[in-house]
């Protein structure tokens, strides 16, 4: 009996269970934020490697890019005594600063609900919220608000059908990264699905970093904050004084 089990296990691990696999290329795997940074576009292209005939099931590709997560306070306003005031707040434990999903077809067709739950791919699933206080009954509306506000600003993108699939073998898509990008590791995941079930996945990281002057100022403000503050004041004082001198010279001329 045990020998049989061991044999099955061996087969499971050695045989390529995944008959299809993703091979991915990125137009760039790191983004440098310098002074002139004004958003960026990343081109993802890939191929599906397989060693057998193309299965008859419907093929789908889902691409998800997530920026670094941070906790958020979400507040709701309500009218009290004629004026609008914040009445309750929910803390969202982790919401990515940026999140983009692109699919090769309609959402319901390319990914089943179960797979979405397991891998947390759609935007609502990517936001983690557990700590709603007991006084708040409809905590879901707070998470919805985060999605709504961030979708409006372009930080969250849901683009169905944006992945171009050719001959069931090649795919490509592009993702626009907005100008107000936060530093960090942008986890990029590619899922290959058949009939809504994930058959293969691939994960890589796009490195987003400040460089040059941006990096120097950021580090200085954190590590030598007194010096940084004094530097800001010296700049302010000399700017004010300089303008005054300049104007006096101009008026005398």
């Amino acid at each position, binding site marked *: 009996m045990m020998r049989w089990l061991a044999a099955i296990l061996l087969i499971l691990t050695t045989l390529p269970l995944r008959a299809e696999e993703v091979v991915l290329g990125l137009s760039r795997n790191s983004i440098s934020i310098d002074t002139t940074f004004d958003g960026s576009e990343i081109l993802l292209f890939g191929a599906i490697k397989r060693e057998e005939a193309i299965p008859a099931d419907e093929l789908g590709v889902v691409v998800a890019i997530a920026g670094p997560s941070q906790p958020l306070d979400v507040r709701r306003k309500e009218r009290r005594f004629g004026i609008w005031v914040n009445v309750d707040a929910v803390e969202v434990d982790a919401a990515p600063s940026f999140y983009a999903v692109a699919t090769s077809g309609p959402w319901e067709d390319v990914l089943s609900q179960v797979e979405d739950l397991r891998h947390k791919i759609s935007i609502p699933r990517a936001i983690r919220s557990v700590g709603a206080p007991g006084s708040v009954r409809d905590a879901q509306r707070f998470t919805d608000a985060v999605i709504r506000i961030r979708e409006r600003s372009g930080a969250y993108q849901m683009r169905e059908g944006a992945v171009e699939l050719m001959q069931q073998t090649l795919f490509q898509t592009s993702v626009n990264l907005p100008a107000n990008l936060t530093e960090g590791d942008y986890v990029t995941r590619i899922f290959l699905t058949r009939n809504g079930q994930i058959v293969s996945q691939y994960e890589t990281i796009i490195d987003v970093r400040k460089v040059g002057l941006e990096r120097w100022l950021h580090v200085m403000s954190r590590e030598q904050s007194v010096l940084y*503050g004094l530097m800001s004041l010296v700049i302010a004082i000399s700017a004010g*004084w300089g303008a005054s001198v300049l104007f006096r010279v101009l008026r005398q001329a």
Partner: protein
Amino acid sequence: MQIYLPIAEVSVNAFLLLGLGGLVGVLSGMFGVGGGFLMTPLLFFIGIPPAVAVATGANQIVASSISAVLAHFRRRSVDLRMGTVLLIGGLVGAGFGVMLFNYLKAMGQVDLLVTLFYVVFLGIIGGLMFFESLRAIRRTRRGGPVRPRKKHTWIQKLPLKMRFRTSGLYISVIPPVLVGMSVGVLAAIMGVGGGFIMVPAMIYLLGMPTKVVVGTSLFQIIFVAAFTTMLHAVSSQIVDVVLALLLMVGGVLGAQIGTQIGARMKAEQLRILLAILVLAVCFKLALDLLLQPGEVFSISAVVRP
């Protein structure tokens, strides 16, 4: 031309910032206000995080105030002695204000309280100033004699008298210290330099001439704003020096232009314009409270100590 700001972590148009700085600088030079009450909401509007906007605004105010105060020094319209007395009161008041602010924060709803405070206070000051200057303008139009503003007699009786030559006053130091302190408390709670509360207080409570008030107010704003900048830079690291620099370039030039405009205007015209400005800010804040916001939810990063 887009520029990425290292601390604010957003990319904005550099010319927009230059213009914004210039606009606030003109007001600063004309009226002796720092302009923080105007700069912060405007920066917020173009997408700068509110905390960064407040802290960086303070840094920019240092520059434009220095630029404007130097122009006033040349015109001898800065009462250094009065400015110093007000400043001492102001720093003590700011200390109290920070304590009060933390106490209110512990009770919650501090934002609402600040806004309500603002609306009531600005409404009263702006309204009073508007009607007073309107009367003054009417009087001068009719050609009648300009009646000197009433001076409180009990103020004359207080001890510790001091001569403020530039302002032409011989009064006790107690009222200026008290005015400085109360403005300091308000400034700390509301998170602004308090110039546009200080200016009417100097005109109406201390009876200083309008022309001297502007320069003197600017003089003390420099120190308050510098203090605030350091506090923000050290405690929360939210001063964006690139943003500040862009605002400054516009601001210092605007401040020079502002003082030129201010010097060519009559005192009561200057007062009525400031009154309108104060009332406009008051009106805008009141609208925010009364009208239903487009989005009732708001998100902000959790600040973990």
